């Protein structure tokens, strides 16, 4: 007797426009590419918070401080949810953190740079979270269901981050001349980084292309970059901010924005761990990880004690009634 095989391959499911779930048999390629992007987005959330933490003590008002703490709480929460997702796919959290600290897995280019001024914090939240949001929003349609579900909450919370950033931008854009100058100087610094944030063009990135084919990444790097311009160019103009790229314009014939090709050499140098702040931030995280190792060890020991005592009190295990 032949029982019909009920299991579809990933390709079959994708062809049926089905969502992939945890119990499905995943190919190594799918799992590796998926875990790769999850680790990248998780690392970016985590290191983004590292960039902003320096300003938590110094946030210039009561309201700003509360918003900044809340924002960073969200970012750590996003990192937690995404690392946990990779754990459910068989990765080990401690190994993922170790690999981040060793520079073996990357994170967003923006978080390798210093945030020396308060306006940098506004711009990170408005322009860079805004860039990340293009990717996160598209990931709500990723082929991997559990990742898509997390992205729905992530996007809801990122919307608040962008509003918080824009509130700071508006304060500067409508403030004193000194503030307006600081704002423009800030955009001059962060604009090229935002353009690069989306990564290499599709024709240059084999991996990105494959992720699009497998539905892991619903939109390509270039699509996301163009979408970002669509959203942010009007916003920048609204605040009288100049786009610091003399070759930037909308090409009616090609129906897309044209811009100066980013300095990919700088990009590669930065994201491979040689940014001005990369090592300092990773060192801080390493120290924190080591200094709190005893806490995690105590948690484990407590759990073992508790399990041991549960087994001696027979009958009290896992009962609901």
């Amino acid at each position, binding site marked *: 007797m032949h029982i019909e095989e009920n*299991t579809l391959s990933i390709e079959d499911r994708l062809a049926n426009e089905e969502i992939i779930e945890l119990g*499905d048999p995943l190919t190594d390629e799918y799992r590796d590419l998926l875990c790769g992007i999850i680790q990248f987005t998780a690392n970016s959330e985590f290191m983004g918070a590292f960039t902003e933490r320096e300003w938590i003590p110094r946030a210039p008002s009561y309201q700003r401080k509360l918003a900044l703490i809340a924002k960073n709480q969200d970012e750590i929460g996003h990192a937690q949810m995404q690392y946990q997702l990779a754990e459910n796919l068989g990765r080990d959290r401690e190994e993922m953190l170790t690999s981040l600290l060793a520079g073996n897995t990357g994170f967003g280019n923006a978080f390798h740079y210093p945030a020396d001024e308060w306006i940098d914090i506004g711009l990170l939240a408005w322009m860079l979270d805004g860039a990340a949001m293009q990717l996160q929003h598209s990931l709500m349609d990723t082929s991997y269901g559990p990742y898509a579900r997390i992205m729905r909450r992530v996007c*809801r919370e990122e919307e608040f981050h962008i509003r918080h950033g824009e509130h700071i931008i508006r304060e500067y854009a409508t403030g004193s001349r000194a503030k307006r100058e600081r704002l423009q100087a800030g955009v001059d610094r962060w604009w090229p980084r935002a353009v690069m944030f989306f990564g290499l063009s599709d024709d240059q990135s084999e991996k990105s292309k494959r992720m699009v084919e497998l539905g892991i990444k619903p939109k390509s790097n270039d699509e996301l970059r163009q979408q970002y311009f669509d959203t942010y160019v009007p916003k920048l103009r609204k605040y009288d901010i100049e786009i610091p790229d003399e070759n930037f314009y909308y090409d009616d014939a090609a129906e897309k924005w044209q811009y100066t090709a980013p300095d990919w050499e700088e990009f590669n140098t930065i994201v491979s761990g040689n940014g001005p702040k990369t090592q300092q931030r990773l060192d801080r995280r390493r120290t924190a990880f080591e200094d709190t190792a005893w806490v995690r060890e105590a948690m484990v020991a407590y*759990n073992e004690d508790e399990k041991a005592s549960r087994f001696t009190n027979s009958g009290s295990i896992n009962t609901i009634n």
Partner: protein
Amino acid sequence: MTDNTMQAFEVFVQWQRGESHKHTITVTASDTKMALSLAKRNVDVRNEPVSIWVMPQNAIGRTTADDATLTPTIDREYRNVSWYAETGGSP
């Protein structure tokens, strides 16, 4: 490798009275009590949960993707309201 012996807990939140608990996040904790405490501040804190359940991930039984017994295979159209509408109630 301390994390290996910490446990993952699935967190289920009832967001509104009258609704069922819904799977929300997973937290890693030492034990059930701490998992509950952590869950209180790790779920979406912009909404107010009515109740939270946590459960060790390894205590959950799950079906596999190739489980052929998930649903009966023979059509049970007579259990659906629509069948009666289509046939106009005739036997």
